[in-house]
């Protein structure tokens, strides 16, 4: 028994490198370097763990501009067997509905048994894409996953999920979409040989909207949501007073507490 495991990865601006615009005093994300969405590192590790458990192939998938290829190289360096770049101008303006459709069709085309994703992305943070993929394909889903337990003899994947106030163990029929809870899977280091291969010899497969036969179903026009406006939020005004003396702090606390 061996499974085809697709893992979704996305390129996002590096939060740690997001600078402050000197003129406005606001975060300037546009100039931040692009990195792999941190929760997707957990997803990669979970995908590799499932492969360790049942055997098979892990294929990294990203939907994005041509330069998003670098996250796929990174994924291959970290141990993925192969990678697909889904790229097309037709995708421009897609909200979570067409985005999850695109990834759902990609998973179908790969004949994936399992699709693993990060919990959410740091740049749009909706967390809606993994359930959206499952919904488009009518597949099972497991979100907020902290541990995976492949059960090939049952054709199911069981997972420990974080739920409010506790945990549950849920088994889902294949194919299944898994969204991994951020910070729960320690990523294994990329091997040197794999890194050299990924950077020099590896080329991901490229698919367009046409290849996936969804040209009419993606992009701005089919996206049910639109951005009606952006208001900058004034940062909460705090005093920012650092005191040296613990007595001063105790005094403040007593006052607030009174």
């Amino acid at each position, binding site marked *: 028994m061996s499974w085809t495991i697709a893992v979704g990865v996305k390129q996002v601006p590096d939060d740690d490198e997001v600078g402050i615009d000197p003129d406005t005093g606001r975060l300037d994300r546009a100039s931040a370097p692009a990195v792999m969405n941190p929760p997707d590192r957990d997803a990669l590790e979970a995908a590799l763990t499932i492969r360790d458990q049942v055997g098979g192939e892990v294929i990294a998938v990203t939907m994005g501009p041509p330069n998003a290829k670098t996250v796929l190289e990174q994924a291959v360096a970290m141990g993925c067997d192969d990678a697909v770049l889904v790229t097309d101008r037709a995708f421009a303006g897609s909200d979570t509905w067409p985005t999850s459709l695109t990834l759902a069709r990609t998973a179908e085309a790969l004949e994936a048994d399992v699709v693993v994703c990060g919990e959410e992305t740091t740049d749009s943070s909706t967390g809606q894409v993994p359930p959206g993929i499952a919904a488009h394909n009518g597949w*099972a889903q497991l979100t*907020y996953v902290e541990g995976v337990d492949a059960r090939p003899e049952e054709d199911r994947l069981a997972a420990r999920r974080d739920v409010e106030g506790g945990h549950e163990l849920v088994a889902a029929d294949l194919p299944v979409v898994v969204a991994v809870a951020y910070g729960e899977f320690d990523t294994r280091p990329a091997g040197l040989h794999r890194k050299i291969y990924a950077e020099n010899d590896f080329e991901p497969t490229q698919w367009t909207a046409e290849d996936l036969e969804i040209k009419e179903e993606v992009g701005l026009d089919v996206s049910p949501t639109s951005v009606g406006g952006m208001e900058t939020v004034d940062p909460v005004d705090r005093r920012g007073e650092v005191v040296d003396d613990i007595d001063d702090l105790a005094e403040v606390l007593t006052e607030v507490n009174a």
Partner: protein
Amino acid sequence: MSDDNGSGIDVDEYDDVWVFIEEHAGEVMPVSWELLEEGRTLAEKLGDELVALVIGEDVDEIAEEALARGADRVLVADDPVFEPYRADPYGEQFRAMVEAYKPSIALIGGTHTGRDFAGRVAVPAHAGLTADVTEIDVDDDGLLQARRPAFGGDVLATILCEEHRPQMATIRPGVFEAAEPTDEADGEIVEADVVVEEADCISEVLEREVGDTADITEAERIVAVGHGVEGDLEPARELAEALDAELAASRAAVDEGWIDGARQVGQTGKTVRPDLYVAVGISGAIQHLEGMNKSGTVIAINNDPNAPIFEHADYGIVGDLFEVCPDLADRLEGDLQEVVQ
């Protein structure tokens, strides 16, 4: 008006404001009552009915409570297939109800459960779904304006859904006041057809272990612990006791398993609004700040003078929390003693 908007649906056919009442084994998640209160405001502005949706097993009492807390109508889907919660039967049932009753707006708590199944409704319904909303309103045309923090809370984006229905949103727990029960409930309870069968379910809950869920959103004083406590909650607990405060945490502390996830503050946790928020060994990542920005006075205890939390605190002290917390607690206890004497 006809449907010349391109989506192929007539938005005028859709009305009513729906609120999903999330329950687990008879326990209602507090965010559900928060949404009912906010839903009431929207329904009144629109001249629409406020409809509560209750999905579960043996949920009569919950349906009654939803009426008492202000719903004009409660739609109930009562069946063993809904207990415990699973994404596929909940999503399918909710979707079928949306199709049958055509609500204009559907509000769902931004809990793990709500965020788990909302997409299973929005995708087949081709509805607009906005995640993790912190402000909602309707504009002059009756269109839902769902606002959510973007770019780490630096901006508030307004998301619209003009041509598709329902207009769905998951809403972060803790941002609204809860609807209180009254004696004047005169709404009706409607049994909805249950469209799901166990045989069609594609997932199975094997084990479920849930304790009491803490509600930090109501706390007036909070001591929050971060990764800096290194698993030792005692100093923070002492300080919390001296201040009569609730314990809360950053995600890093929750992920380490040091404290229950229900106590997490931030983008993927709760929004809190205490008078006093003491951040102990918390660096001040944007995802954390988002959940604590509504606090009154913020105090930071951190041994790194460059920790971003100091810029987002009213008062801070650079020092080792293992020394500062007990010391502060002692002084506060001393003060209290003085007050008592």
